[in-house]
């Protein structure tokens, strides 16, 4: 009796595993086809506007680079210098010191010759209190603004303070330890200017910097990771960005622009309420809310992805850290899906319903979406 039951259980599991695998493969074949068209489209559109023309223009949109920093004293100076060396004619770098307990702020003050300024801070998105704003007395660093605030126990809160302090209509959100390619702002801002429909967010590929040659915040040479965990993650990232996100971008069904690298329309983000500081996956939650805001207000929009690697970041190289990260992502996904569960009831979300279903059934185990 028990053996029969166990046999039935194994048989059922085998059928489930078979169907799941087939669905997974077929789904990825479908995504691969969509991605192919999206990438081809991107290549063709590149000739629409030569990037040098944009660099020479006075009519481009300004961009604020927002990078929260918490206890980054060891590398903060190099990282800020790296961000200040990006190629774009109209941008500012906002470093948000999120109540660091180390010497992050002191190092910034001494290295960049900062002085506290009377900044009229408008809390358009509620955050923890801001202690002050700093600007450099050295004109070389005129693009730099440092925001010092009380720790909000989340990257979301720090990013919101940066958004509140920004002056340009677009902002690029990144981590201070991410290494960006020089033309990152240009590549991400281009879709906002060339599309006839309003683009509310754009993102691009992120790669692994674990084994890369990095000197003083600048990427000298790209290497494939030497350790096994980063190696698999490298493949997973490439698969995710080229197969997944490009495909979703093609049907305007993207529900996530990575927290490590994403450019946003500030007006829409502020109206949508900014990053939610209690979210475990604030990047996905923000995009979902922005979509909701656009749908609720009957506004047409696009979220674009670029099939180019523009950002390099360190990933977990040990099992413990890796598992912790993936569990957090899975929890963030469940939280976002639960919070926006009415997507399945509403017809206005169109292509997102499919994406939500896929996320629920295929990505809930925590792999990179």
């Amino acid at each position, binding site marked *: 009796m028990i053996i029969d039951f166990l046999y039935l259980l194994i048989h059922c599991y085998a059928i489930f595993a078979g169907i799941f695998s087939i669905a997974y493969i077929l789904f990825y074949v479908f995504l691969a086809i969509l991605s192919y068209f999206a990438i081809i489209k991107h290549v063709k559109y*590149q000739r629409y506007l030569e990037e040098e*023309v944009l660099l020479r223009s006075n009519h481009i949109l300004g961009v604020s680079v927002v990078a929260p920093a918490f206890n980054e004293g060891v590398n903060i100076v190099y990282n800020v210098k790296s961000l200040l060396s990006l190629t774009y004619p109209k941008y500012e770098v906002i470093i948000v010191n999120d109540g660091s307990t180390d010497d992050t702020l002191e190092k910034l003050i001494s290295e960049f010759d900062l002085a506290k300024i009377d900044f009229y801070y408008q809390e358009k998105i509620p955050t923890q209190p801001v202690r002050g704003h700093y600007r*450099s007395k050295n004109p070389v660093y005129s693009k730099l603004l440092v925001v010092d605030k009380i720790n909000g126990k989340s990257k979301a809160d720090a990013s919101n303070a940066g958004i509140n302090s920004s002056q340009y209509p677009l902002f690029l959100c990144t981590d201070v330890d991410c290494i960006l390619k020089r033309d990152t702002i240009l590549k991400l801002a281009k879709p906002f200017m060339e599309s006839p429909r309003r683009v509310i967010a754009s993102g691009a590929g992120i790669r692994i910097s674990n084994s890369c040659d990095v000197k003083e915040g600048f990427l000298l040479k790209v290497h494939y990771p030497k350790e096994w965990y980063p190696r698999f993650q490298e493949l997973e990232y490439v698969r995710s960005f080229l197969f997944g996100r490009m495909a979703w971008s093609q049907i305007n069904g993207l529900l996530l622009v990575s927290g490590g690298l994403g450019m946003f329309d500030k007006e829409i983000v502020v109206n949508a309420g900014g990053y939610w500081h209690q979210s475990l996956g604030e990047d996905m939650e923000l995009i979902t809310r922005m979509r909701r805001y656009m749908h609720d207000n009957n506004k047409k929009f696009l979220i674009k992805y670029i099939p180019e690697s523009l950002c390099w970041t360190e990933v977990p190289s040990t099992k413990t850290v890796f598992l912790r990260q993936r569990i957090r992502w899975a929890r963030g996904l469940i939280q976002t899906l639960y919070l926006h569960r009415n997507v399945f009831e509403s017809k206005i979300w169109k292509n997102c319903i499919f994406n939500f279903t896929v996320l629920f059934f295929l990505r809930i185990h925590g792999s990179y979406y």
Partner: protein
Amino acid sequence: MEQLIGYIKHFVIPFFLIITLSLIAILLFKRIRYQYTLPYRSQIIRKSEIFLTEITLSNPDKNTLKYKISKFKSEIPIHKNWCKDMLISNMILMKSNLKGKTAKNILSIYKQLELNHYSASLIRDFRKYKKCLGFYHFQAIGYRPGIHMIKKYLLHPNQIILSNANIAFLALSKGNWLALDKIPVKVSRITTIKVMDVLHSENIPIPKDIDLWIHSEKKAILKLAVMTMVFYNYRNKSAEIIKLLHHKHKALRIDVIIAIRDLYLNEAEEELLSLFDKEAIDVQLEILETLAVIGSEKTISFLKNEIPKQETKDLKLKMVFCYNTLDPAGADQLGSQDADTQKMINHIRKIEL
């Protein structure tokens, strides 16, 4: 069920396996071939760069140029498209860094190497991005005989081809706005950027019929007219520009307000003040930015009344900015009466150390 499993086992899995293995084999083959030819390509690229630099800067006579080019052609795989692409890219890069007669040398080398035929073949290609690449080659190298090929695409139904063909035509014809009437209803920011870039880089003279453009009923032409007038600092039609402040399209009104600022049309002050209350916040912000440039006593008294009443912080901040620019002493007086206004004044004055 058994049948389904058998079907999967015998057909679906082998099918995917074959596809996967074939893709892996193609990828490996391509990668190996790339690695194998890489040193050869690098050598050709280096050789081309040296040749182009030498021949462009040495300014040789016709016969020497002919001889050197035929010798160079025999040393590189000029029949390969990657080689042609590489040569043209190098030439474009060099041309952008050179001026005068030296820059003109690039054009004659381009013709001698018969790369114009390659660019023309790109324009004839059925793929739209290849066409755009061809337009770009002609435009960037300054190959004027290519105009007749580009002309065919000035009214193309595809927006990207149409846009790039028009820009290339405008650049090569040195300001012939032949297809102006046919430009799309909406002019994107990108089109504006491209037109302004051509006007700037090609030293195009002001269009003869610019005065007629400003009377057009098309929003796109009006936008181009206003921006072109700003570029040439052309103030002869200031009354017509000011009239456009009442245009039904908000985006155009914003462009006009910016144009008023850039052209210093002080006579628009009253009109701007009268429109202020009727406009949306984003337009109001632009009006205030313009009033900070062209404003007079009228603006000052208007702001003096408005600032204490204003509840929208963004708007109030811009008002304080405008007031502080026009009358710093008055701003101080206003700041002493209201702490919030004083904070805004401090922000404006000290944001740039």
